[in-house]
């Protein structure tokens, strides 16, 4: 079934929104306005966008340390996201989570996570709740190539597979686990091979092609909703920036970075939409401009928002 024009434009807009957010976050971080660490999603926007385009507001996602894109793709607002990065009272977590732990449970976003792979069993648990309550909600669990080597991956995928939980594992294989290639620390060269160990289907897609991600994750989500269990979807993509801001990336071959820059998911989708007649250059430019303006407002909101009261540190330990 062809994808509706409106959906395609939404996907383009989401990708540009994430990119613009990330570039602005980099700028504000460099200017010293964002404390802590920031891990940016530049170059991988097609994965969160294509995957979350299959979800309903009541579905769940778990995210990673590189989580702004997942939050925005699930429906998070750029102003409250930016305010959280700034450590402000108006941020999604009232300034208690920051970039690396940002969450909005109201839209089913169960958290970015400072621990690699920690979201894997948690997504399974959310999917278990859906199954036990008899809803047809699903959970998408985002994680990177590095997380596939953790205990959490083995135990979490094994349990979810056995119980046929409605969870979809979306692996963002961006080639680098910080500064280590996963293939340098594991015998497994194709991550999808791991699915055989759990008796679940797996598919690898070009992660920088948002429509390929949308389609593959869409099939996996439909399968999960029908109660047929998890699927592993490997999205091959590339982290264009450092592991976190400030990383000089001396370990990355220049040619590799240049080659992937040519495969940047946003210009290629824009070109495709223009070829398809979904957007004109002018209309695409307008979206780009609107996102720049939205981010100007988001930064202004973050800057002008109050800081939390210091005593706020004492609240919310227990319900």
């Amino acid at each position: 079934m062809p994808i509706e024009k409106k959906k395609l434009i939404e996907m383009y807009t989401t990708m540009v929104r994430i990119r613009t957010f990330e570039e602005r976050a980099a700028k504000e971080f460099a200017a010293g306005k964002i404390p802590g660490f920031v891990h940016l999603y530049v170059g991988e926007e097609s994965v969160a966008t294509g995957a979350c385009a299959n979800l309903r507001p009541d579905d769940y996602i778990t995210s990673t340390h590189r989580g702004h894109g997942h939050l925005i793709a699930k429906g998070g607002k750029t102003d409250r996201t930016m305010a959280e990065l700034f450590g402000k009272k108006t941020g999604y977590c009232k300034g208690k989570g920051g970039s690396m732990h940002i969450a909005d449970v109201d839209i089913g976003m169960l958290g970015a996570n400072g621990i690699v792979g920690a979201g894997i069993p948690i997504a399974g648990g959310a999917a278990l709740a859906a199954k036990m309550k008899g809803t047809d909600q699903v959970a998408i669990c985002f994680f990177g190539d590095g997380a596939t080597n953790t205990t959490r991956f083995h135990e979490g995928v094994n349990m979810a597979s056995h119980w046929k939980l409605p969870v979809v594992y979306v692996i963002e294989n961006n080639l680098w686990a910080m500064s280590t290639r996963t293939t340098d620390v594991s015998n497994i060269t194709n991550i999808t091979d791991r699915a055989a160990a759990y008796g679940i289907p797996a598919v690898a897609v070009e992660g920088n092609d948002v429509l390929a991600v949308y389609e593959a994750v869409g099939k996996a989500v439909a399968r999960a909703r029908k109660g047929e269990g998890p699927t592993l979807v490997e999205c091959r993509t590339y982290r264009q920036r450092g592991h976190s801001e400030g990383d000089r990336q001396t370990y990355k071959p220049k040619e590799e970075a240049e080659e992937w820059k040519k495969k940047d998911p946003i210009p290629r989708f824009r070109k495709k939409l223009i070829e398809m007649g979904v957007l004109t250059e002018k209309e695409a430019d307008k979206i780009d401009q609107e996102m720049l303006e939205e981010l100007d407002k988001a930064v202004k909101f973050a800057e002008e928002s109050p800081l939390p009261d210091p005593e706020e540190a004492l609240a919310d330990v227990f319900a």
Partner: protein
Amino acid sequence: MKEINYMQAQNEAFDEEMARDPSVFLLGENVDTWGAAAPSTRLIDKYGPERVRNTAISETAILGGAIGAAAAGMRPIASIMFVDLFGIIGDELINQLQMRYMFGGKLKLPLTIHTGHGAGVSAAAHHSKSLYVWLMAIKGLKIVVPSTAYDAKGLLKSAIREDNPVVFLTHKMLARLTSQVPEEEYLIPLGKADVKREGSDVTVVAMSFMVHRALAAAAKLQQKGISIEVIDPRTLVPLDKQTIIGSVKKTGKLVILDEEPKTGNAAGEISAIIAEEAFDYLDAPIKRVCAPDTPVPFSPVLEKFWIPDEDDLIKAVTEIM
């Protein structure tokens, strides 16, 4: 009233709470079939495999799954056989259970971690620890350490109803210990200590199995004319400081009996609280009667030497009289 043991009491608590609230469920290793000593016995027959979920040997997925399920509106009970296995679930305990705080208070995480602990059955170092202080160091976690069947039932029901993560520690040495419990439903709130024996000369604070050692020592000391007040905090977080301080005001003397090694244990924390908040009422130094700073040994003779007993407590009390 009826007489039931510590494990039966927990079985009743699980049963009553599962009957009351369909969002309560149990997951863990062997929770469906394990023998009569296990608190989940026969629940599978009544609630089926959907709510008594037997799992692989995957502690990380058990607790991680419970966290996700709790975040999505269920009320899971994660069974982790022994507290000694908590090293495996370190990330979930110290990083993931803190979701509520890190998300700015938007979320409730109603889950219970049920686990066994304690020395005394020659299970050696991998199956005999208590780790109270590890647990106390984790923020956002309540800790229940019941010493009787009566307490176990009422506290476990409260733990399951709690909208926060709670770890419920059941001591191996207490499994067959019986108490009178009411036929009708009762709850014991978390954070309320129980004076297990009233006395006037020395306050002894003890948890779980050590409560019984303290009571045995108190009976012997009574014969020597020394009156011991035994306080059982019942929960380490929240800790009922006021009951302990109130007792110290009366007796002027405090001994803490803790089955864990002395360095960095719960007794140290309680000592510090009393030294800080009730120093003026103390007539003698605070004494800590604890296990030595070693792993738990295997051979019965070694283990007996290792676990603090009545004689150790009597000696400490006598020193400050």
